[in-house]
């Protein structure tokens, strides 16, 4: 049996419609905005439909605010480098990924991490308020932890930022497609997300929802204002220099349709049920520490655990030998591990998708049991 439980890295199992659309695009779609012939116009139609579908799913009032990126990291780099300058005080959560921390470090921002007890949403909001008392130019906040699946109180965080008049960037890498994300209601300045995780699009696809203008990260051809050397000062063109990833966008469109058809809340319900079963099974095994979230509202399709006396990487290898794909280590999110006290050893992370089954979860529990017995 093979079991794929690394969906927080990328959802490997895609809907058939996504694969068909993506491979079909290779021979049918030209470059949008680069011509008036049928291949360019077909690509333009697909790109626009994808923007429309994303705008509808995330309640964005204008399709021009939906920007295509190559992944969440790309989007986060665009907007962090738009809003943060060297020396700026930037507040982040204690669950951030390096897609946030590294751009801030590169810029030379003065980063303040909001610490709190593990999975304590109330303390998080209280501590953010305290941090804001010292002032900040920007808040960058992780919606769902890629390590623990912890759903942060993003509505409250957004409200606090609005009250303090501090711009907010949301990293929706692990939430887009499962956890409710209402761009208009949140009033965030930007939300960045991958297309290849919970939206079931191909790798190399991503979305950036823009509440304001960006500063281009890269410059080049946009198919608009071509006589001028300055980048267009309007969205989405300002953020989309160079040829679009049309196989990615075509697949992403089908992925968004798939998610919309099934309903993010139903997908999340399925994932949470599996994670609860996985957590319950693993907790019964002696020597296994499970970082499960008790509050149903705060959990999602990700679970971290450790095995006493065994390095996470080795546990991951042992599971891989049994056909189970998980991710071990720090998951590019050292801040989350510092919050949990699992830094620098890390954890083993299992993450599910709509395509995982109860049988796969039970198989995984048995495999961990076996690994623990043979230590």
């Amino acid at each position: 049996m093979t079991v794929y439980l690394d969906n927080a890295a990328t959802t490997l199992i895609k809907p058939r419609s996504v694969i068909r659309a993506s491979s079909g695009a290779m021979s049918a779609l030209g470059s949008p905005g680069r011509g008036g012939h049928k291949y360019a116009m077909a690509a333009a139609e697909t790109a626009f439909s994808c923007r429309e579908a994303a705008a509808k799913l995330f309640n964005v009032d204008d399709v021009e605010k939906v920007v295509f990126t190559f992944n969440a990291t790309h989007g986060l780099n665009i907007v962090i480098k738009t809003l943060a300058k060297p020396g700026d005080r930037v507040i982040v959560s204690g669950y951030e990924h390096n897609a946030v921390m590294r751009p801030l470090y590169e810029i030379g921002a003065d980063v303040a991490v909001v610490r709190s007890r593990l999975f304590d949403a109330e303390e998080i909001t209280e501590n953010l308020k305290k941090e804001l008392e010292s002032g900040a130019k920007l808040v960058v906040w992780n919606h769902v932890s890629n390590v623990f699946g912890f759903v942060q109180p993003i509505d409250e965080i957004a409200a606090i930022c609005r009250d303090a008049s501090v711009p907010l960037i949301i990293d929706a890498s692990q939430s887009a497609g499962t956890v409710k994300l209402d761009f208009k209601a949140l009033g965030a300045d930007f939300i960045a997300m991958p297309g290849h995780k919970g939206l079931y699009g191909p790798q190399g696809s991503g979305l950036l929802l823009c509440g304001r203008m960006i500063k281009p990260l890269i410059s080049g051809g946009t198919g608009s204002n071509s006589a001028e050397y300055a980048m267009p000062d309007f969205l989405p063109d300002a953020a989309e220099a160079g040829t679009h990833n049309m196989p990615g966008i075509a697949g992403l469109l089908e992925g968004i349709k798939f998610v919309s058809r099934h309903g993010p809340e139903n997908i999340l319900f399925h994932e949470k049920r599996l994670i609860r079963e996985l957590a319950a099974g693993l907790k019964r095994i002696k020597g296994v520490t499970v970082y499960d979230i008790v509050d149903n509202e705060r959990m999602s399709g990700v679970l971290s655990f450790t095995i006493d006396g065994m390095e996470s990487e080795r546990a991951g290898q042992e599971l891989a030998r049994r056909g189970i794909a998980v991710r071990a280590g720090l998951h590019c999110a050292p801040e989350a591990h510092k919050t949990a006290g699992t830094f620098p050893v890390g954890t083993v992370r299992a993450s599910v998708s709509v395509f995982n089954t109860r049988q796969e979860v039970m198989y995984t529990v048995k495999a961990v049991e076996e690994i623990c017995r043979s230590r």
Partner: protein
Amino acid sequence: MINYLMICRSLTYAQKAAKVLERAGMTVSVTRTPPGISEKGCGYCIKVPERRLSQALEMLKSADLAPTKIYVLFSDGNYSEVGL
């Protein structure tokens, strides 16, 4: 048949505007802006039939999607700018 070309700042803008008109039952198309018209280089426009022009303009104005310029496209392929 005479058509009008509504010049838009970008492809996405033109598509967005065309969608507004299509939803109202108009048959319009997004096309490449002819080279002699496009002052800033590559661009896209919406082709609207003559009889729909005023209605289309009204609708785009209320949707805050006004075109940057309008040209009349004659059946022989010539065109000239129309004051907004």
